[in-house]
């Protein structure tokens, strides 16, 4: 079974590649469910990527392996702090959310490289420490699923899956989640019912910042190992996954994995003879094209939050 062999070898890579997408798309979910479009995910990921790289390279001598976890935490915190910019602009100052998000992307890209140059002299920060993939005890021996899901896994994968489950619970089973979603659907009604729309939207944007920061850090500590001023459009791919996943946690899980799998196939297609017949372009452009297609097909019945991207001005109620 050559095909099976190939799939089981690719699968762990695909999972690893999907996880940062999942984190960022989940972040986008919180923000957009509260009614704020966040196309600044890409920039927030860059910030997380950078802060994590700097933290690990500074703390590695004293903390050893634990520096990675500190790095992840710092990245989430940095993403959160940086997203305040987006929150202030789009919630308080009634800015166009797309422009504000674009500005976030540009500031993040330029500022982090600027700082990296000041710190290291070059625009890159390399880390020599990262998570080592491990086989989950016992489970990796399960037939079929074992080799696919429990072999060569990263700690961050399990962390993010836990966050996914938690997010589902928060959004659909708690008062906070209900209120957050109300602000994304009918902010005026939510306000009339006594919900502080501004506060909920702040929460949505800041959570998205933290998750995007975490996502950027995950890229660093699993497969990239180096900060170089960009996350190569993964933030936008996460945005596509959010849309393709229909603004739902499980939909996002499916979409991110699907996109991650496509991207991984494209990356390995050069070296795997069986795949070289499929042009890389098709695999790489596939997620974007299929998202466009999904938008067309579902344009009549989109599940997008109704007030997504709408400025909320209490004065104009």
């Amino acid at each position, binding site marked *: 079974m050559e095909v099976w062999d190939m799939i089981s070898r690719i699968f762990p890579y695909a999972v690893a590649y999907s996880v940062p997408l999942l984190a960022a798309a989940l972040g986008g979910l919180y923000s957009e469910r509260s009614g704020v*479009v966040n*196309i600044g995910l890409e920039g927030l990921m860059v910030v997380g990527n950078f802060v994590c790289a700097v933290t690990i390279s500074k703390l590695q001598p004293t903390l050893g392996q634990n520096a990675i976890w500190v790095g992840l935490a710092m990245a989430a915190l940095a993403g959160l702090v940086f997203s305040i*910019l987006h929150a*202030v*602009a789009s919630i308080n*100052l*009634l*800015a*166009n959310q*797309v*422009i*504000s998000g*674009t*500005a*976030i*992307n*540009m*500031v993040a*890209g*330029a*500022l982090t*490289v*600027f700082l990296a*140059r*000041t710190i290291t002299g070059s*625009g890159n920060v390399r880390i020599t420490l990262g998570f080592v993939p491990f086989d989950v005890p016992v489970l990796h021996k399960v037939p079929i699923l074992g080799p696919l899901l429990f072999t060569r896994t990263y700690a961050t994968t399990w962390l993010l899956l836990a966050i996914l489950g938690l997010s589902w619970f928060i959004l659909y089973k708690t008062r906070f989640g209900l209120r957050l979603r109300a602000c994304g659907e009918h902010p005026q009604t939510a306000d009339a019912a006594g919900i502080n729309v501004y506060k909920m939207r702040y929460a949505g944007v800041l959570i998205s910042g933290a998750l995007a920061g975490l996502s950027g850090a995950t890229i660093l500590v699993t497969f990239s190992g180096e900060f170089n001023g960009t996350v190569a*459009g993964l933030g*936008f*791919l996460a*945005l*596509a996954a959010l*849309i393709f996943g229909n603004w739902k946690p499980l939909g996002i899980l499916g979409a991110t994995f699907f996109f991650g799998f496509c991207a991984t196939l494209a990356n390995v297609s050069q070296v795997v003879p069986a795949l070289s017949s499929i*042009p*890389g*372009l098709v695999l*790489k*452009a596939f997620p*974007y*094209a299929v*998202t*466009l297609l999904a*938008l*067309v097909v579902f*344009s009549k019945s989109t599940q997008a939050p109704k007030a997504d991207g709408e400025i909320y001005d209490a004065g104009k109620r």
Partner: protein
Amino acid sequence: MNGLKNLFTALAAAFLGLLAGALLMLAIGANPIEGFSYLFRGGLMNVERIGNTLATATTLTLTGLAMAFAFRTGLFSIGASGQMLMGGLVSIALGLTLHLPKGLMLPIILACAMLAGAVYGFIPGYLKARFNVHEVVSTIMLNWIAYWTIYYTVPTYFKAEYLETESARIPEYASLKVPWLTHIFGGSFINLGVFVAIGCAILTALVLSKTTLGFELKAVGFNRHAAEFAGINVPKNMALSLAISGALAGLAGATYYVGYAVNMQIGVMPSQGMDGLAVALLGANSPVGVVLAALFFGVLHSGKGFMSAMTSIPPEIGDTIIAVIIYFAATSVLFTRIWNALSSRFRKKA
């Protein structure tokens, strides 16, 4: 009064951007006055550098016009990057395959780049008009589809002799650079694109303010329901607006890849696409404003290298300043409030 308010907003945003740059320079222990003087000298100190500034501003003017045109019809296309790539790809492809005299070659390249951009802009326009797909999302997707198209097409068909990551150099007869212009500006990157940009700015201004087409497009932009009521074909105008916007961005691609540069690198999303957003915002979506804003950003871009060579300040300060300016231009309601407060106080005194 409105023009004055826009000017105030633009100046305030630019000032805050420069201020942020100054603070950053201070933060890394550099002298901002020295930094800025090198930055502006780097953009303006001799004819060669002025030529480079103009060459940078050429592309920015065109992407800025592309954004502004879509904005004026109420559409938020951020697809200029992808349209630029497509225009550039067509230019490079023609430049490397056609063998014609320069006088014939350049019009063909420009027309085809424009067409490529227009087609690539029409797609989100059509999706918006027909299926109500939000243009922000569709243009993001199309940008990345263009990015990967270049990534795989260029190495396969237009590979450079040694490098896998860029196209071959285009021949002299396919380049927008002309000896007399290069000579006047002391060997800079300036090229015929500068006239294309000026022409497009004038044409855009003319279309928007004097023609029935502009009248329809702006009506759709301000209030599509009223436009529909008046019998204006709203979907057609939306698709048309994005196609024209795409044509301008396609031209920007030509002026960049076969004007400023001599080949096309893969794996790069052209920053001029997003910078065009900044240009349009700062220029208050008016063609004149766009040209002025493009010149300003042109100085920042072409001066940053010189500044970085002469001081310890990294060149990314230029991009940071531009990004901060966009941020503040986006939050212009802040300045509008300040402006209103100031002008009402002034009126009370008078």
